[in-house]
């Protein structure tokens, strides 16, 4: 392209020179240069037509109906004949409402004897609900002299449509999902060696568990209750930062290293690991009981990067938060006839009361309950950089604790004001440690 521009400029200068000096020789040179450039344009346009006519696009999304924030894998195959001396770059043209998570959305095809099929596989996350047709492809064709771009958005190159369903902030329907009503049923199959308790014998008890010493001493049959053996691996929850969040790359690397280390430990010790990847109140991926460390690391490599957050909680307080605040205000015993501060407190209480009647269970909370509920885990490790709004972590910790799951929070620094007052702000975690 640069070369073509220089030659075009040279032709113009020579034309000007020939006109000023009335020099036929210079005119001849300029005309020949111009002829060469026009010839090159004609040849280039012919090649572009050949290439574009040969294009065949086949686009296969994993699903055509998804919920906002769900990641969808799309595979696009483009068959194109590349004319001699040309290179063709094929780029997927995606609606702006789809955020590309990873994968290949652009390939370059070189000249080949037969039409070559180029495959692009990528994953996108719809950020806004609605119907979004895939808009087509962008072909960038270039040879030694020229380059052009063609947006192929005609029906043969575009589609299908991706129907994105909205995601509400709250759970739909009158039915409330609460952790309090859920039955927690944890049975330990393997018993350990330690004796947890002694109790009287009941019909059906294992005869081998009878403690003969105690039986002889009390003249009643006593059996030993052995302590259960804990072989449940912890659930690892990774809270990825949003793409627009400001965070320290070093902290993120430390978090990745810590997560990878814990995954490796879990696989080696418990033979499998479960990882829940979230970003704010968005469930990104759930890897359940992965036994293969290599596959686990591949999944981590694929996901451990900042992602777009289509849903935000905007520091939403849930019902228990609001009730706690109302109780705090009630504890101060404000009076209608009091000063401005008292009036403000009463006004605040009314607002909280109004909010309480409107507030329902958050969608994210429901998702967390369903995810943790289907697992057998006693312990979870939550890794977070604590960027921006962390009310989703509060929801997560609260539900986990309600299910009697031990929560270990891993953050960049314990001294960070976000975490230092964690117990006061609702983060009643079992352990809080820094991974940095």
């Amino acid at each position, binding site marked *: 392209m640069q070369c073509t521009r220089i030659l075009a400029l040279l032709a113009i200068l020579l034309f000007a020179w020939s006109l000023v000096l009335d020099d036929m020789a210079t005119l001849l040179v300029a005309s020949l240069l111009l002829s060469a450039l026009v010839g090159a344009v004609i040849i280039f346009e012919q090649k572009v037509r050949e290439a574009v006519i040969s294009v065949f696009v086949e686009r296969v999304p994993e699903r055509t109906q998804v919920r906002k924030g769900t990641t969808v894998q799309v595979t696009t195959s483009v068959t194109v004949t590349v004319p*001699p001396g040309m290179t063709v770059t094929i780029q997927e043209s995606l609606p702006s409402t789809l955020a590309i998570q990873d994968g290949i959305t652009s390939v370059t095809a070189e000249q080949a004897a037969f039409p070559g099929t180029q495959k692009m596989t990528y994953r996108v996350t719809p950020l806004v609900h609605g119907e979004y047709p895939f808009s087509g492809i962008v072909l960038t064709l270039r040879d030694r002299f020229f380059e052009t771009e*063609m947006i192929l958005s005609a029906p043969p190159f575009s589609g299908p449509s991706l129907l994105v369903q909205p995601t509400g902030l709250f759970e739909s329907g009158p039915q409330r999902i609460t952790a309090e009503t859920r039955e927690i049923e944890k049975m330990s199959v393997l018993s350990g060696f330690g004796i947890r308790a002694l109790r009287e014998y009941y019909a059906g008890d294992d005869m081998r568990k009878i403690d003969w010493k105690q039986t002889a001493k009390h003249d009643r049959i006593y059996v030993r209750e052995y302590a259960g053996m804990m072989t449940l691996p912890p659930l690892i929850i990774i809270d990825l930062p949003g793409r627009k969040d400001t965070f320290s790359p070093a902290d993120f690397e430390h978090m990745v290293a810590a997560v990878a280390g814990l995954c490796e430990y879990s696989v080696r010790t418990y033979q499998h690991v479960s990882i829940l990847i979230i970003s704010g109140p968005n469930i990104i991926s759930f890897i359940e009981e992965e036994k293969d460390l290599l596959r686990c690391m591949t999944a981590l490599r694929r996901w451990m990067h900042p992602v777009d957050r289509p849903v935000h909680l905007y520091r939403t307080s849930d019902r228990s938060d609001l009730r706690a605040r109302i109780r705090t205000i009630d504890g101060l015993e404000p009076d209608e006839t009091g000063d401005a501060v008292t009036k403000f407190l009463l006004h605040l209480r009314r607002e909280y009361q109004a909010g309480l009647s409107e507030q329902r269970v958050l969608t994210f909370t429901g998702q967390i309950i369903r995810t943790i509920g289907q697992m057998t885990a006693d312990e979870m490790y939550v890794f977070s950089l604590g960027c921006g709004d962390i009310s989703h972590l509060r929801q997560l910790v609260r539900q986990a604790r309600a299910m009697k799951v031990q929560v270990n929070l891993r953050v960049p620094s314990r001294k960070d004001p976000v975490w230092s007052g964690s117990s006061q702000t609702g983060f009643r975690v079992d352990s809080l440690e820094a991974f940095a």
Partner: protein
Amino acid sequence: MNAVNTGFLLNGLLAAVILLFSQLYPSPAAYAALLLTVLFITVFLVTRSWDDRAVYLALAGTLLVAVFSAASVWGGLAAAWMIALIIASVMDIRLTRASAKSLAIAACATVGVTLFIDSQNHVPVPLMVVCSAAFLILAAIAVRKYRFRKHYCGGAA
């Protein structure tokens, strides 16, 4: 024969063409062209490992053709063809059935342009004719391109 040998052969042919025409049409411009041929060959040798070698060769070649055309218009055309072939060999442009057809059309076009310029005494009229022709061709290409894009690009055309 590889591109390097073709390049050297074409440079030799260029030198021979210049020498021949300078003998047929002896003038100060023809002798200057001989010196510029040496310059062109030097550029060809020096820029072997440089990027955008074609640009340097095109610049040196333009100077040579401009000076040599002052001595002989047809000699200038012959030199221009030699230089075009040298640049093509440098850029590794292979001769195919399609490119041979384009080459033949280009040869006819340049001979036509040279004939027309040779028949004129002053620059303004042939300049206008050449520029108008180029403009008309480019306009026709643009219209054709627009219709093509409209068909394939849908609403994005």
